């Protein structure tokens, strides 16, 4: 409580970072709000696709026994982007669910990609480089680990 009333501790030493202009057209907060909305729409879209796939899947397999005790690994239809797209085309519910999950994984990746634009608009070269590194790791995970094949 008491420390709230003692601004004199901070007053003589303002943070030594360069003064920033008050009205920048692109500030962090505005970019974040746009990115937040982007993320939410991505999740809504992904959830809708998953739900659609769930309806097809349940309408066909509702009364079969469920068993996840033994790990078999998914067939390649559900492990690669091309496999997922093919099973969506052939109208399979689980293919649609997997497409929704792929969209979901793509949402934060899109967020990172758009952050690069945001940092570039702010002319922050250092953070453009940092964000590119994060994007490279994400793309390696998605494409380099065999999922694209």
């Amino acid at each position, binding site marked *: 409580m008491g420390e709230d009333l003692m601004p004199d501790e901070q007053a003589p030493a303002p*943070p030594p970072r360069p003064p920033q202009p008050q009205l920048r057209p692109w500030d962090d907060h505005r970019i974040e709000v746009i990115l937040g909305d982007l993320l939410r729409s991505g999740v809504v879209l992904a959830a809708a696709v998953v739900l659609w796939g769930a309806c097809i899947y349940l309408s066909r397999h509702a009364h079969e026994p469920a068993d996840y005790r033994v*790990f078999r690994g998914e067939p390649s239809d559900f492990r690669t982007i091309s496999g997922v797209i093919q099973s969506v085309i052939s109208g399979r519910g689980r293919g649609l669910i997997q497409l929704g999950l792929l969209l*979901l994984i793509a949402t934060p990746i899109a967020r990172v990609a758009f952050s690069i634009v945001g940092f570039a608009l702010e002319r922050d070269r250092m953070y453009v480089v940092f964000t590119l590194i994060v994007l490279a790791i994400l793309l390696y995970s998605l494409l380099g680990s065999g999922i694209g094949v």
Partner: protein
Amino acid sequence: MTILEFTAVVAIVSFVAGLLGALTGLGGGVVLVPLLTIFFHVDIRYAIGASLVSVIATSSGAAASYVKEGFSNIRIGMFLEIATTFGALLGAFLATRIPTSALAIIFGAVLLYSAYLSRKPRPPAQRSLPPDPLATRLRMNGSFPDLEGERSYNVQHVPAGFSLMFGAGALSGLLGIGSGAVKVLAMDQAMQIPFKVSTTTSNFMIGVTAAASAGVYLSRGYVDPGLSMPVMLGVLGGSLLGSRILVKAETKSLRLVFSLVILVLGLQMLYNGFWGKI
């Protein structure tokens, strides 16, 4: 159990986990894997795959409401994401190589630690720390809206925080959780970031971190559509509802109950891991 019954029960359990996770701020993913493996006898690898997907959904779904409050710091988040995504990639590759009993034991240990951390009182917020040269060069210092107006903060110990975040990413990739407990350690304690800033920033980071390991999990066949569907939809629905009623709810006793649940599940995971039941 038929697929319809299984889907319905898993969806309800996931909904409750997501709701409690959002209300208590402890995350729902951390209880999902033990619940699925202990009570539904799901192989831990399928459970981790499904949980990872739900982590992305909750993190991205909540991001929009968090950022509008102006607490999160995208520079801190993006810089630390280099560490977490790299760690997540490593964790996901490790998960495909180590035995499932070892996974269960590590999971149990993380649960016990989370339960301990959730009961520990938060250390009082430090004010007006001197700026750290590295953090200043990385432009991490910022400010956030407080009761008395904008409050500025200076980030400390960047290398220590960065290393801890690598560990958080590795755990997230290994166990399919958001690993909020380690993130709190890195951001609150090592880097001295104000609590609200670190919570909202780490929420942002969780989704990106999970996406880094999700690719590996999907391509290794750990993400089963039939299981991930009710988990993802349930957790997402529960956590969205949870963040809506958060303001009104009395969370103190709820937090106690939830941390007890985490404790019990942690002991059960350790038991199952050591006796080779997983």
